[in-house]
């Protein structure tokens, strides 16, 4: 069966993940956690990629840098792609490196024509370096930046047009950014080029400890919120079934608890598949 809904793999869930017999289940990891010469980490990724479809979701290529992607990092990513043959490879519309300093984060930038050209060049380099197309993910945003020349949805559409990349739409990020910056998340989703969407992410967020709900944080430490499920159904009704991932990186519950959210996403996908086939 083709991949339907998946879960971000945590090493502590490996045994339960391998035991599961659920149809359509797939897994995603951050390749940066598996860029090792050998040992248990390498064995985990081999076991998972032999058992299930695997997606590599990078956080380190810094696509929105005014500099080329780090060739060493790109080579290490290529080695994982060659060894594990992931069905999806994705990265973020963000930057995390400047010269020799890395910020383990996904930092924003002004969506100018210059940035568009630079990021398109970087995506080209990555796709050439990997020998395949990647998906690019919309970020969570926390500050208003003056000087945007492009809406984010149009910016993503133009990257797709120029580079042939696909999109990974993180619906929680859409909710968080729209809430923090004050725009309509449904309008945002409706402006996306839905044929380019190759993956969807769902995750939990939290209120900022100081500013409360006025500042939502993409914390991945809680169950997916109902407004995010509503956005998800809205998006999937437009796109049809798209591989969907449950992301959880903190306050990690038992595997079975994540599977409840995963099964809910799978049922949304199944319902829209029936509609498409009807």
């Amino acid at each position: 069966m083709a991949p339907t809904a998946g879960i971000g793999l945590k090493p502590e869930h490996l045994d339960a993940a391998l035991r599961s017999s659920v149809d359509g289940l797939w897994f995603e990891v951050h390749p940066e956690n598996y860029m090792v010469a050998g040992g248990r980490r390498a064995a985990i990724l081999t076991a998972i990629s032999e058992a299930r479809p695997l997606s590599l979701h990078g956080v380190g290529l810094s696509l929105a840098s005014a500099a080329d992607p780090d060739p060493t990092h790109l080579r290490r990513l290529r080695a994982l792609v060659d060894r594990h043959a992931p069905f999806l490879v994705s990265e973020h519309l963000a930057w995390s490196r400047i010269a020799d300093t890395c910020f383990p984060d996904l930092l924003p930038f002004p969506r100018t024509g210059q940035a568009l050209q630079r990021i398109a060049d970087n995506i080209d380099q990555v796709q050439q370096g990997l020998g395949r197309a990647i998906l690019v993910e919309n970020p969570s945003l926390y500050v208003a930046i003056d000087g945007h020349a492009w809406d984010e949805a149009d910016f993503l559409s133009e990257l797709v047009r120029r580079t042939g990349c696909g999109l990974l739409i993180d619906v929680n990020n859409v909710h968080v950014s729209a809430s923090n910056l004050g725009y309509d998340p449904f309008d945002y989703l409706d402006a996306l080029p839905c044929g380019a969407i190759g993956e969807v992410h769902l995750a939990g967020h939290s209120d900022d400890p100081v500013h409360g709900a006025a500042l939502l944080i993409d914390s991945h430490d809680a169950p997916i919120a109902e407004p995010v499920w509503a956005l998800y159904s809205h998006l999937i009704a437009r796109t049809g079934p798209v591989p969907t991932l449950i992301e959880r990186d903190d306050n990690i519950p038992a595997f079975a608890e994540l599977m409840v959210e995963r099964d809910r996403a799978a049922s949304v996908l199944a319902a829209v598949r029936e509609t498409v086939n009807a």
Partner: protein
Amino acid sequence: MLDLARFQSEFADAIIGSSMSGALASQPGFAVYRNTPLKAAIDALTANYPTIDTLLGNKAFSAVASIYALQFRPVSPVLNDYGAEFADFLASSPLADDLPYLADVARIDRLWTEVFVAADAPALMLDAAAVSSLADRIVLHPASRHLWLDSPAATIWLAHQQSPFEAIEPAWTGEAVHVTRPEGTIAVEKVSAADIVLLDALAGGATLPDAAAAMLTAFPDADLPATFTRLLNRGALMLADAFKENR
């Protein structure tokens, strides 16, 4: 037009803290961009130096880790590798006055991580007695690390791997540690000063016979067969041509 390189540079400066002013850094949400990389770096240090976390307690560890993380930003997105200077940082910190073994314990945590991610290769499995014809081809396995420490850090490290741990008062003496990965499980053990002579010689490229000779020259009473058997049992040796770089 807002130049991307200049924007990145100013944004990075604002995260690091040298320019607090401006329309961006004054927004409440900017704190997220200050906190997230710092938390990620502290989390990585906590994962990479678990015994220091145990020794100091998580609150004190996080305080020390945040000082380190602000001074030594990651240079790679691969955070398994983060914290290479942490032991030296601890050695020169005020903590070293009260806890003079702390940096050496951190060095053992670092060896653990290096062994955890080291390359796979078939370990030498022969009986010690059957090896003489292969002796010149025997080298250290990639998942073998050893270190001489000027403190009883190996005893302290070993005592803090289980919770609750018993109070110990080790004699203040230097110790040697050997970290290996037999059957995929990491083994940390105290070894003799004689063992370190042998391991240093092998690590420096000496053949096994030459390394054994160096050991017995330095420590004429050393038990070479026992050392050799232990190295085989720990998967610490392999044949030179058994290792194919697959990084």
